[in-house]
């Protein structure tokens, strides 16, 4: 009469077994570990063997070694071993790896190879820094307009077309080129289009002058903004993965339209990271104007045509040609060389376009001076609290071209301390748009541990109270509900481990809440059974009716909670999202265990009995 189909019991059993299996990795705990990442390349198997050998020579034995996703993880059974190993590796292989101190799970290798991992902990539980940057997407559009303006001027100059003006209007998102007459306009248009084929130029008349304009479409603006955000994400990732910053498992993700959220687990002091992340450094190579006197230009303020006035680090004026030989976006590589015969140097690689230009330039200008200009854009607040972009341009190096070179050469004369940072910034590339930090949350590791302890304590006591209460109040059925509750927690843990959503303190609160909801469903069913029994229905019929009739109420009540959970999820800011994820997943597992799971158990306990006079409820 209870008639709960066997396949449903089997389904419950299978799900539970899979759940227990997937939740297993959480039982192993964590160990001190080192994470090694190689700069711009994956750590290889050969590196792994080498590192283990280096450690063996100094009699440090790691308790586990894993090579995953290009990162080498070394586990150690004690803190001393971990620290000693770090020093040993750093000494034996200077500058080869980023070495970050971290924690790694003791999960056995076969489980790892199946992709099984324990629940990830959020920053509030493991400590770390959470940063949100605002990307200046307007600035990115401005940069595009500026580049177009420069391109137009260059095209017109190269084609020797006389033009009146090239004017940028940021508010209208357009660049206008003004000419004296229609003939010049036709030539100018041809010159620009021969350099940039895909431009859509429209004729206009500005104050009786013939002109054409390039107007960015909303589509182009959006593309440019998206490009700026995704490009910045790539660059931030590169910067965070370089050996100069020892960060383990950094996460960089887009948030909303124009924001980037960064998670740096285990990091204590964000000052160094923020300094590197916010920088927008790039290089330009220009020829030195050797025919004019820079001191005179600086004194009178009159700069000769075709030149531009710069200063060196020690405030010496320098005149450089306006035409840029190579710009920073043509850089492909930059490495710091501490000990060359000319002192510290940064070795630079160029792409094919840059290399071709550099080759032509060095051939033509052998024996002349070439300068390296370092451009650093940063965003600051002025005295009025208004944000301004400050661009610092300095000549960091002037040297005579002694040979012909193209794609690979060295910049000498850099300061050894700055050389390292310069190499990092050049390599990571210039940011596509300036960044402003707008949110920062840093949680110390001891507070994280404290939060875990409190969260678990609350969970244990809360569940214990519910367990005892249910057992006393509903006796055997109460114990069935308790088993279902425990299964719920196991399944939820399995889901969280599998999905890889980080568990936060609000997430633990959500676990506690779903326990409440699972109990709720069971109480609905049991109260209904009792009611049916009071109405004189036989025990078997009461069970069947209880499970069946309570279902509509259970569906309704969980559905409304699900609505709240999904809204929370889409509302999605850090702490709330952690809560909502667990709530939504937990609603699923709690309905499954408290309806199907407990029904299966009731069937197992009471279903086989031939005579059923009374229920222990």
């Amino acid at each position, binding site marked *: 009469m209870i008639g709960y189909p066997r396949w449903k019991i089997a389904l419950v059993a299978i799900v539970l077994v899979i759940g227990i299996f997937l939740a297993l990795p959480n039982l192993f705990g964590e160990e001190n570990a080192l994470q090694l990442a190689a700069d711009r390349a994956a750590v290889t198997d050969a590196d792994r063997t080498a590192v283990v050998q280096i450690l063996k020579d100094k009699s440090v034995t790691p308790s586990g070694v894993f090579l995953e996703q290009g990162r080498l993880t070394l586990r150690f059974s004690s803190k001393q071993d971990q620290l000693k190993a770090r020093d040993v590796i750093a000494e034996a292989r200077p500058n080869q790896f980023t070495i970050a101190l971290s924690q790694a799970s003791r999960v056995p290798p076969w489980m790892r190879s199946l992709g099984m991992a324990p629940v990830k902990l959020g920053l509030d539980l493991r400590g770390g820094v959470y940063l949100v940057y605002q990307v200046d997407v307007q600035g990115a559009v401005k940069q595009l307009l500026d580049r177009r303006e420069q391109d137009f001027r260059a095209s017109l100059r190269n084609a020797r077309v006389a033009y009146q003006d090239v004017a940028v209007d940021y508010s209208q998102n357009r660049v206008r080129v003004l000419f004296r007459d229609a003939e010049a306009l036709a030539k100018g248009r041809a010159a620009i289009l021969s350099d940039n084929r895909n431009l859509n130029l429209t004729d206009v008349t500005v104050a009786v002058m013939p002109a054409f304009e390039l107007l960015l479409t909303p589509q182009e603006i959006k593309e440019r903004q998206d490009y700026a955000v995704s490009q910045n994400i790539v660059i931030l990732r590169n910067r965070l993965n370089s050996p100069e910053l020892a960060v383990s498992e950094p996460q960089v993700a887009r948030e909303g339209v124009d924001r980037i959220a960064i998670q740096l687990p285990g990091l204590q002091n964000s000052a160094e990271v923020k300094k590197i992340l916010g920088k927008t450094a790039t290089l330009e190579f220009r020829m030195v104007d050797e025919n004019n006197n820079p001191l005179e230009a600086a004194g009178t303020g009159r700069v000769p045509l075709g030149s531009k006035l710069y200063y060196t680090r020690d405030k010496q004026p320098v005149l450089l040609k306006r035409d840029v030989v190579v710009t920073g976006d043509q850089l492909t590589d930059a490495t710091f060389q501490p000990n060359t015969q000319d002192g510290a140097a940064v070795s630079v690689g160029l792409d094919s376009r840059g290399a071709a230009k550099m080759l032509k330039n060095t051939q033509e200008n052998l024996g002349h001076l070439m300068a390296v200009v370092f451009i650093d854009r940063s965003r600051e607040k002025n005295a009025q*609290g208004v944000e301004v972009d400050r661009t610092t341009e300095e000549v960091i190096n002037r040297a005579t071209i002694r040979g012909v070179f193209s794609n690979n050469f060295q910049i000498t004369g850099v300061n050894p301390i700055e050389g390292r940072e310069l190499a990092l910034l050049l390599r990571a590339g210039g940011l596509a748009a300036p960044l402003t*930090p707008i949110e920062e949350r840093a949680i110390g590791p001891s*507070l994280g541990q404290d939060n875990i302890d409190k*969260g678990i304590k*609350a969970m244990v006591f809360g569940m214990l109270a519910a367990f005892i*209460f249910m057992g006393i109040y509903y006796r055997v059925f109460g114990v069935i509900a308790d088993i279902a509750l425990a299964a719920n927690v196991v399944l939820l843990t399995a889901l969280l481990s599998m999905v890889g959503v980080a568990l936060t*303190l609000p997430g633990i609160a959500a676990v506690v809440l779903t326990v409440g909801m699972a109990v*709720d469903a069971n109480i609905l069913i049991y109260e209904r059974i009792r009611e049916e029994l009071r109405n004189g229905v036989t025990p078997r019929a009461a069970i069947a009716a209880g499970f069946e009739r309570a279902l509509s109420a259970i569906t309704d009540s969980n559905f409304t909670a699900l609505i*709240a959970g999904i809204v929370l999820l889409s509302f999605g800011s850090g702490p709330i999202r952690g809560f909502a994820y667990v709530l939504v997943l937990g609603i699923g597992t709690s309905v499954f265990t408290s309806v199907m799971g407990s029904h299966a158990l009731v069937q197992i306990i009471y279903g086989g009995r031939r005579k059923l006079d009374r229920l222990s409820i």
Partner: protein
Amino acid sequence: MEFFHKVTRFPFMNTRKVWYGLSALLIVTSVGLALIRGLNLGVDFTGGVVVETNFPQAPNIETLRAGLAGAGVAGAQVQAFGSSRDILVRLPPDPNAKGDQIGAHVLEIFAKTDSGVKLQRTEVVGPQVGQELFVKGGWALFATLALILIYVLFRFTPKLALGAIFAVLHDPICVVGFFALSQMTFDLTAISAVLAVIGYSLNDTVIVFDRIRERARTARKLSIAQVIDESINQTLSRTIMTKLVTLLVVVALLIFGGETLRGFSAALVIGIIAGTYSSIYISSALALDLGLRTDDLLERKAAKPEEIDGLP
């Protein structure tokens, strides 16, 4: 064990004026408190800086305050956070302050009082982010209410839906009133608690409605007021038992969850109590006063041929 062995027979509908009065009082007090005293909005919404530190021994807060003021840190609120050894400093948004520097700066000043002080946590929220989160939180509340209204309309009748929505509004208002009264920090976690309360409170109401619909179809001789009374009484043990167990769990959160979850769990405790109250005393009563009739609850397919036959 069983607390409700016999089905209770409380005359909820006859006494509903009393409960309306109580609810009106609660709502007016809550709104009044929120308007007059205001909410103690957290750094999530106002923007600004929070620095949490831990001392080996309980420090004198006055000394710390004086230290900060002496070092030129303006507008700092210093308070104990949980225990007397945990000190929380809150600073207004300062355009020139950089997060990690302000944390280190506060720590430096505190170290003069006790060199064993440790930095536990820093949070820096830009003023525009705070504003946005506040607006977003408001929208989330609105969206939840709207979606739930649609769901209830779909599942039940318009009159019941209105009763449900009123009951559902009643509970978060009480929670907000509690935050205004206690001056606990109202932050993002508090908002998520309010949303959870909305989901929870509706849950009870829906279960009562479910029963009312069921009874209306089977016990056709009873008046609608009798049906409602019976339904509430029949589901009473379930309503109270589930909320009791949920309260047990939430109280464990309140006691053991630490300071970070205190606001959240307190909001849930208040919300669950208010929700239980409103779904027993208010939501169905309101539906009755909105003119709910047995006919509204009958299945439409069954109701139509009866009308053709001219039956009542």
